[in-house]
C-alpha cells in the first residue's frame, strides 16, 4: 500500500468523521426546531435558546472545518459540488448565516427586527438547514449532473473545469426522492437528539416531560426513515473504480458489497445502530434520561461515519456523475497531492487535543 493511497483514505476517513460529528452536533438545530411548536411559553423558548446558544458555535465550527478539510483534501469535490450545485449550497449557507447572529441579537435592545424574527431565523436554520444538509450529503451516493474536464483550462473562451450541465444548479437535487429521504432522516435525527438533550436537563421544569413525550413520535419517524434509507442504499447500484486504470463502471449492490467486503464498516455501522436503538429503548422505558442523549448521539456518530466511509472506500466513486460516469469523482482523481495530504496529516495530530478542550468546555457549560 503506497503512501498516497493510505493518505487519500485517511483523509476521507477524517472528512467522514467530521461529517459524522456534525450530524450529531446538529442536535443544536434540533433544539432550534422546537422553538415554535413545542416550546409554547416564553420561558420554554428561553430554555431552548439558552441550551442551543451555549453549544451552537461548536456545530457551526464543525461545519466550517468540514468545508475547509474537504477543500484541502479533495479540492475537485469542493470545486465540482460547490460550484455546480450552487443553489443547494447557497441555501445551506443562508440557513447558517441567519443562525450565527440570532442567538446574540435576539434579546439585545435595538435589534431592529424584533425577537420573533430572530426566533424564526433559528427555526429556519433548525428545520430547513438540517433537511438541506441531508439532501446535500445524499448526493455523495446519488451524484450530480456534472462533467469534469481538467483540460478545459487551456480553452481561453470558457476555461471552466467542472460544469453543471443543467440550469438548476443544485436545485435538481431536491427532485430526487432518495435525497429528500435522507433530508428527512437528518431532520428527524437532529430533532430527536435535541429533545433527548433537553431530557438531560434538571432545571427546565415541566418542559422536560413535554420533551420526553415528543421523543416518542420523533424518534419513530427517525428510525423508520433511517431504515428505509439504508435499505434503499444497500439495494441501489454504485460506481466502482479500478484504482490501476481509473476506469469507472457501474456495480449493482455496490454499497452492500462495500459493507460486506470491508467488514469493519459493517461492524461500526451495526454498533452505531445498536447504540441508537439501545438509547431510544431506554428512553421508551423511562430509564436513564441523563445518559440517553449521549448513547444515541454516540450511535449516530458511528452509523453516519460508517455510511460516509462506505461512500468512498473500497474503490467507490464518492460523487458520481449522472452525465458521464467516467467523470465521477473518486478518492484517487479528486484528492490533493501526496505532499499536501502529508502536511495535513501532520496537522491532524492536533485533533485529539482540540477535541479534549472542547469536551472540557462542554462539561463546564453544561
Amino acid at each position, binding site marked *: 500500500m503506497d503512501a498516497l493511497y493510505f493518505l487519500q483514505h485517511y483523509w476521507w476517513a477524517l472528512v467522514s468523521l467530521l461529517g459524522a460529528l456534525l450530524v450529531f452536533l446538529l442536535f443544536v438545530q434540533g433544539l432550534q426546531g422546537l422553538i415554535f411548536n413545542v416550546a409554547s411559553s416564553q420561558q420554554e423558548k428561553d430554555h431552548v435558546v439558552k441550551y442551543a446558544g451555549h453549544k451552537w458555535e461548536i456545530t457551526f465550527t464543525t461545519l466550517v472545518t468540514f*468545508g475547509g*478539510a474537504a477543500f*484541502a483534501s479533495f479540492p475537485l469535490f*469542493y470545486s*465540482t459540488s460547490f460550484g455546480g450545485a450552487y443553489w443547494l449550497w447557497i441555501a445551506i449557507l443562508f440557513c447558517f448565516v441567519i443562525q450565527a447572529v440570532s442567538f446574540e441579537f435576539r434579546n439585545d435592545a435595538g435589534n431592529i427586527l424584533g425577537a420573533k424574527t430572530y426566533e424564526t431565523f433559528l427555526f429556519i436554520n433548525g428545520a430547513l438547514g438540517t433537511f438541506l444538509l441531508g439532501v446535500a450529503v445524499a448526493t455523495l451516493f446519488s451524484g450530480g449532473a456534472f462533467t469534469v474536464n481538467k483540460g478545459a483550462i487551456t480553452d481561453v473562451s470558457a476555461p471552466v473545469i467542472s460544469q453543471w450541465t443543467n440550469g438548476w444548479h443544485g436545485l435538481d437535487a431536491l427532485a430526487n426522492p432518495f435525497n429528500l429521504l435522507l433530508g428527512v432522516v437528518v431532520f428527524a435525527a437532529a430533532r430527536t437528539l435535541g429533545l433527548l438533550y433537553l431530557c438531560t436537563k434538571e432545571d427546565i421544569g415541566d418542559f422536560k416531560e413535554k420533551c420526553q413525550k415528543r421523543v416518542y413520535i420523533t424518534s419513530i419517524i427517525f428510525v423508520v426513515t433511517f431504515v428505509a434509507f439504508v435499505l434503499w442504499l444497500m439495494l441501489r447500484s454504485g460506481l466502482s473504480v479500478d484504482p490501476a486504470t481509473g476506469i469507472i463502471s457501474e456495480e449493482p449492490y455496490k454499497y452492500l458489497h462495500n459493507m460486506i467486503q470491508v467488514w469493519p464498516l459493517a461492524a461500526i455501522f451495526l454498533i452505531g445502530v445498536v447504540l441508537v436503538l439501545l438509547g431510544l429503548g431506554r428512553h421508551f422505558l423511562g430509564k436513564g434520561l441523563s445518559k440517553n442523549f449521549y448513547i444515541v448521539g454516540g450511535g449516530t456518530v458511528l452509523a453516519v461515519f460508517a455510511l460516509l466511509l462506505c461512500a468512498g472506500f473500497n474503490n467507490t466513486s464518492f460523487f458520481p456523475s449522472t452525465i458521464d460516469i467516467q467523470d465521477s469523482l473518486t478518492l484517487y482523481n479528486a484528492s*490533493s497531492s501526496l505532499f*499536501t495530504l502529508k502536511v495535513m496529516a501532520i*496537522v491532524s495530530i492536533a485533533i485529539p487535543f482540540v477535541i479534549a478542550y472542547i469536551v472540557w468546555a462542554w462539561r463546564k457549560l453544561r
Partner: protein
Amino acid sequence: MYENLVELSRWQFAVTAMYHWLFVPLTLGLGFIIAFMETKYYRTGDEFWKRTTKFWMKLFAINFAVGIATGIILEFEFGTNWSNYSWFVGDIFGAPLAIEGIFAFFMESTFFAIMYFGWEKVSKKAHLVSTWLTAIGTNLSALWILTANAWMQYPVGMAFNPETARNEMVDFWSILLSPVAINKFLHAVTNGYVLAAVVVIAVSAWFILKQREQELARKSIKVASIFGLASLIVLIGTGDGSAYNVAKVQPMKLAAMEGLYDGQEGAPLVAFGILNPDKEILEEEGEEEDPYLFDISFPKVLSFLATRDFNGFVPGVNDIIEGGYEFTDMEGNTYIEPSFEVKKEMGSKAVNALASFQTAKESGNQAAMDSARAVLDENFKYFGYHYVEEAEDLVPNVPLVFYAFHIMVTLGMFFIVLFIAFWILERKNLLEKKKFRWVLWIGIISVPLVYICSQSGWIVAEVGRQPWTIQNLLTTNASVSGVGSGNVLTTLILFIVLFTTMLIAELSIMFKQIKKGA
C-alpha cells in the same frame, strides 16, 4: 455574458469580504484589550476592572457573531463562485483554510463560549486563560487566511503538475514563512489593533462628553492609546515593508498606487495628488498628458521605498507593459524585464504545451509528453498571460487604487496624532476640561475614518492585484465557476440585503449597548 459572470462574481466576493472586514478587525484588537483588562482584574481583584472587561466583552460578542456569519460565506464562495481557482490552486490554498478550522476556529469559538458564559462556571484563572485564548485564536485564524492571501500575491513553494492540470504544494514552510505572508499578517492584525483602539477611545470620549462612566472611560483611553500607538508603529513599519514587497512581486500594483505611468530613477512619492482623467496608457511620444492635475510630492522617496536606494529605478505602468528595463525580483535575480507581448507569447506556449501534454497522454506518447512538459516548464512563469487579451487589461483600476492608497496613508498618519493627543490629555487630567471637548469629538468622528482607512488598505491590495487571482499564473477571468450570471446576480442581491440588514441591526445594538453603559 461571460464578462458579466466574472464581474458579478467579483462583486459578490468583494461585498462579502468588505462586510467581513467591517467586523473582524474590531474583534482582532478588542480581544487583546479585553484580555489586558481582565488581567488587571485578576491581579488586583478590583471589581471595577471586571465591570469594564464585561462592558467591552459585550461589544466584542456582538461583532464576533457577524464576523463568523460573513466568514463562512467567504470560505464557501471559493467553491461556489471560484471553482476553477479552487482546483487550479486548491492543493496549496485549501490547506491553510483547513488548518485555520482545526487550530484557530475551534479555539476561538470554544474559549469564546467560556469567556462569555463562563464567569460563574470556571475558576477566575481558567476564565482569564480562556479570554487570552479567544484573543489568540482570532489572531491565529487571521494568520492562516492571510497566509493564503499572501500566496495569491506571491505564489511560492509549489510546482505545476500537467497530469492534474494544477499547482501542487512542494514546500509548506516557504508558503507560511514567505516575507510577503509575514508582512501581510503583521500589517493586517495591527490594523485591527489600531481600529479597536480608535473605537475604544471614541466610545470612552462619548462617555466623558456625557459625563458618564468617567473612570471606565479614562482608564480605557489609557489602555487603548498606548496599545494603539504601539500597534501603529508596527503598522507603519509593515506598511513600508508592504511597499517594498509590492515593488518586487507586483510592480504594476505599485505603479497604480502612485499613478506612475512612466518610470524613473529617483521617483518621487506623491503625498497628495489629483489624477488627470485624460491620462492614458501608452500615449504617443510628445503627446503625453501629465498624470496629475495637481500634486505635492516628496522627491526620491518612492525610489527609496521600492528599492531602498534614493536613485533606484521604479517602473511605471508603461514600462511594465513595454519591458526592457533591469529588474531585480524577490529572490534577488536580476534580469531585463520582458515586454507584455513576450510574456503573452510565453504564456500561450505554456498553455498550448499543457494541451499537447494532455493529448499526448491520452494517446500514451511518452516522448511527446516529455517535450511538451519541457516547453511548459520553460514558459510556466507567465502561464496566466495567455488569458490576458490586451496590454491595457494588465492595468488595474488606477484611480481607485491610487486614491485608496493615499486615503489609507493619510489617515494612518492622522491616527498617530490622535493616539498621542489622547494619551497626553489623559495623563494630564485634561480630558474632562471644557476647552478640550473638541478633541473628544475628533475621537468620535475617527471611528468612520478608521474603517475607511482599513477598507482602503484592502482595496489597494485586492483591486491592485487585478487582473490576477494568482499573480502571473491565473487571471480572474479564468478562475470563475460556470454558474450563469443570472444566478450570481440573484445571490449578490440576496447577500447585500442580508449583510446590510445585519449591519444595521448590529450598529443599532452597539449604540444601545454603549448608551446603556457598563
